[in-house]
C-alpha cells in the first residue's frame, strides 16, 4: 500500500479528513422517504434509517456509497443540510444502470448506505473570507451542504456568491430554493445557461463568464468549484486570472469507486485515492494530475 502512504503525504494541509468508527464496509438499510424529480433526468432522494442506528454525522463535501439491491453500489455526494443530520439527502442524475434504477424507487423502498466518506469542504478555513461557490450542472448538489453551512453561519464569512451554470433553463436544479437564495441580501446568486430560446431572460454563456461579475477581494477569497473536469479547469484558470491563488481554490473530483475507503485502488488518480484523499482537493495539489491525459 505504498501509494496509500504517499497519497496521505501529498494531501498534508489539504482538505480535512473525517474519521468514523463504524465498519466502513457495512451497508445499512435505509428507507426512501421521498423522491422528487428536479429535472427530466435528475432527482433528489431523502432517506431514513430502517432501524435504529447511530448515523455518523456527515460534513459538507462528503459522499455515501448507495447500494441499489441486486444492481450495484455507487458513490453519490450528500446534498442535504449538515445542520439537519436526521435526513440523508442525495441528488442524482440518471446516467446508467444504477442511477436509472434509483430514479424509479418509490417511498418505502429500501436502499443500502455506507458512509459518509471522503474529505470535506474547507468551511472552517474559509471563515473571514469572501466565498465563491462555482457549480456546473450536477456539480451543484455536492456544494449545497457547504452553502447551507455558510448561510447558517453567515456572520463568519465575507461576501458570498453562488455562480451556477447549466446546459439549458430546463436543467436548472433546486429552482425554488435558488429563488429564495436570490431574494437574500447577503448572498449573490448568478445563474447562466449554455443555450436558451428567446423566452429566457437570464444569462447565457458558460459559467466561467460569471466569475468577473462576482464581488470578491482576490487577496482574501476562497473558491469551491464542482462540475465536469474541463469546467473546473477553466474556472480555476479564470479565478487565478482574477487574482485568486491556486491554494485557495478547492475542487471535488470523481472517479469510479468500489470500496470508497482507500482499500481497492479503483479510484487511484496519480498518487492519490479520490475516495480517501478526496473527493475535495486543493487545486494546487491536483493541477498537474488534472491535465495528464492518461489519468
Amino acid at each position, binding site marked *: 500500500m505504498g501509494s496509500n502512504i504517499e497519497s496521505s503525504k501529498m494531501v498534508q494541509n489539504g482538505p480535512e479528513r473525517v474519521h468514523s468508527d463504524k465498519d466502513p464496509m457495512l451497508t445499512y438499510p435505509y428507507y426512501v422517504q421521498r423522491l422528487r424529480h428536479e429535472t427530466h433526468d435528475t432527482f433528489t432522494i431523502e432517506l431514513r434509517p430502517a432501524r435504529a442506528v447511530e448515523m455518523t454525522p456527515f460534513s459538507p463535501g462528503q459522499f455515501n456509497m448507495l447500494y441499489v439491491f441486486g444492481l450495484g453500489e455507487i458513490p453519490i455526494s450528500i446534498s442535504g443540510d449538515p445542520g439537519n443530520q436526521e435526513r440523508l439527502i442525495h441528488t442524482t442524475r440518471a*446516467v446508467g444502470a444504477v442511477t436509472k434504477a434509483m430514479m424509479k424507487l418509490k417511498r418505502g423502498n429500501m436502499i443500502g448506505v455506507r458512509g459518509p466518506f471522503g474529505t470535506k469542504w474547507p468551511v472552517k478555513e474559509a471563515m473571514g473570507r469572501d466565498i465563491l461557490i462555482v457549480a*456546473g*450542472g*450536477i456539480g451543484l448538489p455536492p456544494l449545497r451542504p457547504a452553502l447551507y453551512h455558510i448561510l447558517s453561519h453567515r456572520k463568519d464569512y465575507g461576501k458570498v456568491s453562488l455562480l451556477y*451554470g*447549466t*446546459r439549458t433553463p430546463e*436543467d436548472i436544479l433546486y429552482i425554488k430554493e435558488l429563488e429564495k437564495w436570490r431574494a437574500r441580501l447577503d448572498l449573490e446568486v448568478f445563474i*447562466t445557461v*449554455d*443555450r*436558451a*430560446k*428567446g423566452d*429566457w*431572460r*437570464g*444569462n*447565457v*454563456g*458558460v459559467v*466561467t*463568464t460569471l466569475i*468577473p*461579475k462576482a464581488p470578491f477581494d482576490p487577496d482574501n477569497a476562497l473558491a469551491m468549484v464542482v*462540475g*465536469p473536469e*474541463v*469546467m473546473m479547469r*477553466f474556472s480555476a484558470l479564470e479565478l487565478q486570472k482574477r487574482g485568486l491563488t491556486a491554494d485557495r481554490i478547492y475542487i471535488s473530483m470523481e472517479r469510479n469507486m468500489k470500496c470508497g475507503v482507500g482499500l481497492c485502488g479503483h479510484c487511484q488518480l496519480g498518487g492519490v485515492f479520490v475516495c480517501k484523499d478526496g473527493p475535495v482537493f486543493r487545486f494546487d495539489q491536483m493541477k498537474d494530475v488534472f491535465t495528464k491525459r492518461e489519468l
Partner: protein
Amino acid sequence: MQTLEPLLASHPFLKNLNPEHVKLLVGCATNKVFNPGEFLSQEGEDADLFYFIRDGKVVVEIYSPEHGPITIQTLDGGEILGWSWLVPPYRWRFDARALETTRAIVMDGKCIRQKCENDHSLGYEMMKRFAEIIADRVEATRLQLLDLYGK
C-alpha cells in the same frame, strides 16, 4: 459642460487607459438608452458602431426560421458589444437586443478607426483590449460547443 469623459474612463474596458487617449475617444462617443426589445444591432447591417454597456442587459441572438431567436450570449453592464466594426466588411454577424432598459455609450467605429490610424499607440491599446475580449469569447464559445453538461 458635462462630457462623456468620466463615463468612458470608468468603463472596465478602458481601465488604466492613458487620459489623453480617453479624450480622443470622447469625440467618437454618444450616450444612449435602449428600451426593452430595442435592437442595438441587426445581422447583415453595416457595423459602424460598437457599445460600452453601462447597465442593463443585452442578448446576442441568431434568428432561425425553424427555432426562432436562439440566444448565444448575454451581456451586462461593464461589458462590450461588437467588434465587427474592426473587421472588413464591417457588417454585424448577429442581432443584439436590449432585454431590459439598457444604458450604453455608442462608439462610432469609423471615427475610432480613423483615430487609431492617426495615433498608433491608441490603435495598439485598442487592439490589445479587443484581442483579450475576442480571446475570452472564443474560449467561452469552445466550452459552450463542448456541451460539458451533456451525457
